[in-house]
């Protein structure tokens, strides 16, 4: 194929340059994207099929290269690093919330472990050689990003493209048969760590868990349009950002190509005014901020062509693109500063009010998610009203339980002084023994609770201490069975108690208990109580 020939040339040309550059890192990004950029140029509006076939041929061509392994490894490294970005983007995009509100605030609880897993898996994949530097948790917490973001972006683009074409990258890396396109892409993407390779429509994968998490099952083509767009959009933006950071000379190309890239990807399913978007994205790209938060947010974009136009307007960050690029250089992707840099979603109003609204709504949904985790059995429930119902029921049931338990405690509470005395004698003084601290409060609580008036105080202390230091009931019971003479215990217990209690209790709690004891001064078991404290 002439295409192949051309691309092969390009590839080899760039490939030859790649290895040394890869090591250096930053410059490599120029090379990789360049080949793609060229590709884009030559096929600005390539039909999907042609595109993909071309891509596959492009991808496969390196296979024939003698230094394929070397290239492959270096490319693999590239891809690996880029995987981080894609992962983060995709994960944020794949939050369980309805796509409309897919938020990159998917709880940190959820994202990091899975990200780690996928990343680790990729590393373990026996990629031909280079240890994948994807040992960081991509995502909104993109702290440890490599210093070669542009590099990564190039790789991301590359891999994603390859993925989409179910490229033989996999073959190159020795993953799968190049012939088996879907599988190749499927395997490659996860291995590359590219959630963004979602666009390839890989629902079944070798590692379904990761894939499911990272890529929503997508059917090649239409349904994935949005996802791929979403997945690629952020990449593109980040890529473009990085590109500008790394090589200003490339910027023009990058922007153009990214725009076309986006166009091409969008064509998968979107009948958006690509022509317009083609021109817009470049402008957008340059202005984009590189922060991951932004990328996440772009991932949240809903479908709609307006986004293209909206983006520059909604860009709250007024920095010119090149400056942002420089920021990229200096800092790894910053944590989201959503109060400033909010990106408008597709098809949504972009004025300040609605943006603030959206941020608020995202916060609220984040909190609802947290509540969902807190309330048992709420995972399957969807919908705010039902969730709220569950939460209300749960709170009510907890309150009722407390009431019931307090009544039960009231019945259990011995009502006569004699019994209380017995109790005190029996139970309280194991202060001698190596009593674990948590045991103490419970016992003291017991004592206090049996001590008549300061019942409330006792319970407060019990409850508080119970909340702060969980009792071990077993130890309590064992200590209860010990019986020690009261008098012996007295002085010893006092010192023991005070020393043990010191660190454990709140100050006011002690005060309360002491006042409680003060009230009991005149009574027989006062001595015991004092000791307890």
């Amino acid at each position, binding site marked *: 194929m002439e295409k192949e020939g051309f691309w092969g040339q390009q590839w080899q040309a760039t490939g030859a340059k790649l290895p040394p550059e890869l090591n250096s890192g930053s410059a490599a990004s120029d090379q990789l994207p360049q080949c793609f950029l060229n590709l884009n140029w030559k096929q600005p509006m390539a039909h999907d099929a042609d595109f993909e076939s071309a891509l596959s041929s492009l991808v496969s061509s390196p296979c024939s290269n003698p230094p394929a392994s070397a290239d492959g490894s270096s490319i693999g490294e590239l891809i690996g690093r880029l995987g981080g970005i894609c992962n983060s983007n995709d994960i944020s995009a794949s939050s369980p919330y309805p796509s409309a509100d897919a938020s990159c605030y998917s709880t940190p609880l959820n994202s990091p472990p899975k990200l780690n897993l996928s990343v680790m898996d990729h590393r373990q994949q026996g990629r031909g050689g280079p240890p994948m530097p994807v040992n960081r948790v991509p995502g909104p917490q993109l702290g440890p990003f490599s210093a070669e973001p542009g590099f990564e972006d190039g790789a991301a683009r590359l891999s994603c493209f390859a993925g989409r074409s179910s490229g033989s990258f996999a073959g190159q890396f020795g993953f799968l048969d190049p012939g088996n396109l879907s599988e190749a892409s499927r395997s490659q993407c996860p291995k590359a760590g590219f959630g963004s390779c979602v666009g390839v429509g890989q629902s079944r994968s070798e590692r379904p868990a990761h894939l499911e998490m990272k890529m929503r099952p997508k059917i090649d083509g239409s349904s994935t349009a949005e996802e791929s767009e979403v997945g690629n959009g952020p990449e593109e933006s980040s890529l473009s950002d990085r590109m500008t950071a790394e090589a200003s000379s490339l910027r023009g190309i990058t922007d153009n190509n990214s725009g076309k890239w986006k166009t091409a990807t969008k064509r998968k399913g979107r009948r958006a005014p690509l022509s317009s978007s083609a021109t817009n994205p470049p402008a957008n790209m340059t202005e984009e901020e590189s922060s991951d938060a932004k990328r996440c947010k772009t991932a949240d974009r809903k479908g709609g062509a307006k986004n293209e136009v909206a983006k520059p307007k909604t860009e709250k960050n007024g920095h010119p693109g090149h400056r942002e690029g420089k920021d990229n250089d200096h800092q790894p992707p910053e944590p989201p500063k959503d109060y400033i840099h909010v990106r408008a979603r597709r098809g949504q109003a972009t004025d300040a009010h609605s943006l603030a609204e959206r941020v608020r709504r995202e916060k609220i949904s984040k909190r609802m998610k947290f509540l969902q985790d807190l309330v048992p059995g709420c995972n399957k429930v969807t919908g*705010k*009203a039902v969730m709220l119902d569950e939460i209300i029921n749960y*709170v009510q049931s907890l309150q009722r339980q407390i009431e019931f338990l307090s009544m039960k*405690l009231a019945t259990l509470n011995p009502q006569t002084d*004699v019994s209380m005395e017995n109790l005190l004698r029996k139970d309280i003084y194991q202060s001698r023994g190596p009593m674990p601290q948590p045991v103490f409060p419970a016992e003291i609580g017991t004592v206090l609770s049996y001590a008549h008036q300061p019942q409330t105080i006792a319970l407060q202390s019990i409850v508080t201490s119970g909340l702060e230091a969980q009792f071990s009931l077993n130890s309590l019971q064992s200590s209860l069975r010990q019986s020690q003479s009261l008098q012996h215990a007295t002085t010893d217990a006092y010192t023991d108690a005070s020393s043990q209690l010191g660190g454990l209790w709140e100050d006011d709690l002690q005060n309360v208990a002491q006042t409680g004891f003060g009230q009991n001064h005149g009574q027989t078991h006062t001595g015991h109580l004092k000791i307890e404290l």
Partner: protein
Amino acid sequence: MDEKHDHRAMFSSERGHDGFVERSRRIKMAAEMGLARSSRGRHWSRALRRRLLRRKGATSGGSCGCKDDSSSSKTVEELGVGENEDDAVEVEARVHALQRLVPGGEELGVERLFEETADYIEALQGQVSAMRALACLLDELERDKRVMSG
């Protein structure tokens, strides 16, 4: 002596039904105080303390440094992204119910309300487990007492 104890216990329980009620109420109040104390610095815990102190008749030591980000003006419509009217109304009703449940919730907006609810739920869970443990403990004590004296 055991019989005496039992007798007395029975006697007091019969006589003290009101006492029992009173006691359980006091215990509950104590539990709530403990709950409020265990997580200070939360809006709901301050509100709870205020409520309890008010009941006790004391003046509230209003260390209310709480600023409500007061989104009380923010309505539930902001909750839903595009829900229908009916949904919004439903959700709003539930939010109101939640506000009544969580101490101090009425003043809070939805965002803060959820935060406080989460914290409140956690505290409630802790308290329930603490009280349950205490009840078990007392049960054991009672049993031991009976065993010892019996």
